[in-house]
């Protein structure tokens, strides 16, 4: 039908455009399908398998012997997770620590973002760089810095003793306090940036109108600024909370023996116990717990990316 409406060279060009679009879409689509989606299917599959002493150390789930295709699904890993209180405690511990750390980030990060958004244009660029700079240096090294500060012989204890505030060193390293502090420190830039981007777009005329109508500045903040920056708060909180739940490095370096976090348990299950099926089912349960926050974040992100101009 198009042939009759379009001259041949134009038709050729339409075909070229369609072909280009397919290639542009196809390459990243196939890459992500293979290296992002398929791996999750494998995790799901192996979570239904059982561990054996072999390479790879799990039983096949799908077998094809004598022309019969059989599926061996076993839920024993999941039942095992439920029966051992260690795993439930680890999930609960992760969510609790991540939640507190997110709250700390929000309480420090929101005022920071607010002050940044109110600064002069040139100052904003400098402040933005200053907030982002730490997140470009090594994450591992920034967590490590706290080991020297919080230790029993560390800087903070020495300082407090010198000031006479305490007589003997406080145990700060290898506690949950250190883990919360470490997460808040490492993820603070990820809280500040989305809130700042949101606040900077805020229509100042709304604030002026409120002030002209006799609103006090605190009332204006609660009635206008805070509700309008909700998207930034949600995005920032998700960017902190979700990775914090699965965090491994921070509980490993700053946490103690009683710090139970799921990322650390998964790591130990995989590297120390070499139980791949249990590690996989831990990952699946973690993903299920994080599904709501992830979907929430994805919606925001998609809306942001699809917006024109």
């Amino acid at each position, binding site marked *: 039908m198009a042939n009759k409406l379009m001259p041949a060279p134009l038709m050729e060009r339409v075909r070229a455009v369609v072909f280009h679009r397919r290639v542009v*879409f196809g390459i990243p689509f196939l890459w992500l399908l293979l290296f*992002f989606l398929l791996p999750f299917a494998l*995790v799901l599959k192996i979570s239904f398998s059982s561990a054996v002493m072999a390479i790879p150390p799990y039983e096949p789930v799908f077998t094809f012997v004598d022309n019969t295709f059989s599926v061996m699904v076993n839920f024993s890993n999941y039942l095992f997770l439920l029966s051992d209180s260690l795993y439930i405690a680890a999930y609960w511990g992760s969510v609790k620590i991540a939640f507190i750390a997110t709250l700390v980030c929000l309480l420090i990060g929101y*005022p920071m973002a607010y002050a940044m958004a109110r600064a002069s244009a040139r100052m904003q660029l400098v402040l933005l760089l200053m907030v982002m700079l730490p997140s*470009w240096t090594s994450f591992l090294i920034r967590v490590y810095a706290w080991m020297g500060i919080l230790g029993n012989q560390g800087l903070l204890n020495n300082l407090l003793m010198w000031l006479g505030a305490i007589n003997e060193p406080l145990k700060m390293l290898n506690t949950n306090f250190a883990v919360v502090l470490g997460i808040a*420190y490492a993820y603070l830039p990820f809280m500040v940036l989305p809130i700042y981007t949101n606040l900077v777009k805020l229509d100042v005329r709304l604030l002026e109108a409120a002030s002209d109508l006799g609103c006090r*500045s605190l009332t204006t903040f609660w009635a206008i600024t805070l509700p309008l920056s909700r998207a930034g708060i949600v995005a920032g909180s998700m960017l902190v909370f979700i990775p914090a739940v699965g965090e491994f490095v921070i509980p490993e370096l700053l946490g103690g023996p009683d710090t139970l976090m799921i990322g650390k348990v998964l790591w130990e299950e995989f590297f120390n116990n070499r139980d791949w099926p249990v590690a996989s089912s831990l990952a699946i349960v*973690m993903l299920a717990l994080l599904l709501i926050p992830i979907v929430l974040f994805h919606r925001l992100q998609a809306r942001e990316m699809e917006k024109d101009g």
Partner: protein
Amino acid sequence: MVKSRPFSFSKVMLVLGLLFLYLPMVVLIVYSFNASRLVSVWAGFSTHWYGELFRDQQILSAVWMSLKIAFYSASMAVCLGTLCAFVMTRFKRIRGRTLLSSMVSAPLVMPEVITGLSLLLLFVQMAQTIGWPVDRGMATIWIAHTTFCSAYVAVVVSARLREVDRSIEEAAMDLGCTPLKTFFVITLPVIAPALVSGWLLAFTLSLDDLVIASFVSGPGATTLPMVVFSSVRMGVSPKINALAALIILAVSLIAFIAWYLMWRAEKRRQGEA
């Protein structure tokens, strides 16, 4: 503008927050010059640990390995991420677009242990079914890093693509430019700064990753974070302090140059207007 007081609560918090971000790093740099092996005792100024660092063959080869992987991952991630960004900002009605955009934004928030575990299981399965990869190492880390870095590149580039004036592209197409030529002649120069910042972001992310690399690496490939982690697990070490100080210095220098270039470009733009 609504009146702003010189010492408002938020300004005080901004200063305190920045101190919170920077003081630990300052402490690291100061203690990297400590002559004593103990962290708590200041035994005078010394550059002893820097000498120690540069004699450590294991650290030096890990640095080289990490730089190579980061270079290749960032380059590939820029290609893939730009394609993703293009699809998401320009192809509004292509089939599978929703799935692609979910797959692009998911790695941004996926816990690293899950990504690492899932990719390792994939590589093991692939080795069984198609016989590749025989050994895990640089290539598998490259694939893993490319995948999660593409997501960050896509965010940076799509932000820029949305601001580009489409009329110039349309004009070029109307004058007979093929879409491919239009992209290289018109679109690419305009989004080049975003590609550079996306590349740098991907480079630092790859350089910094410990968890995913630990999962997908084999005996042959040890990256810098893996060496640092195994040493730090044992406790504070002055050699790592020296390494940390050098990393902080390098990043600050690059950030300062980037800031200066942006500032100059901004000034020139203002001069033209």
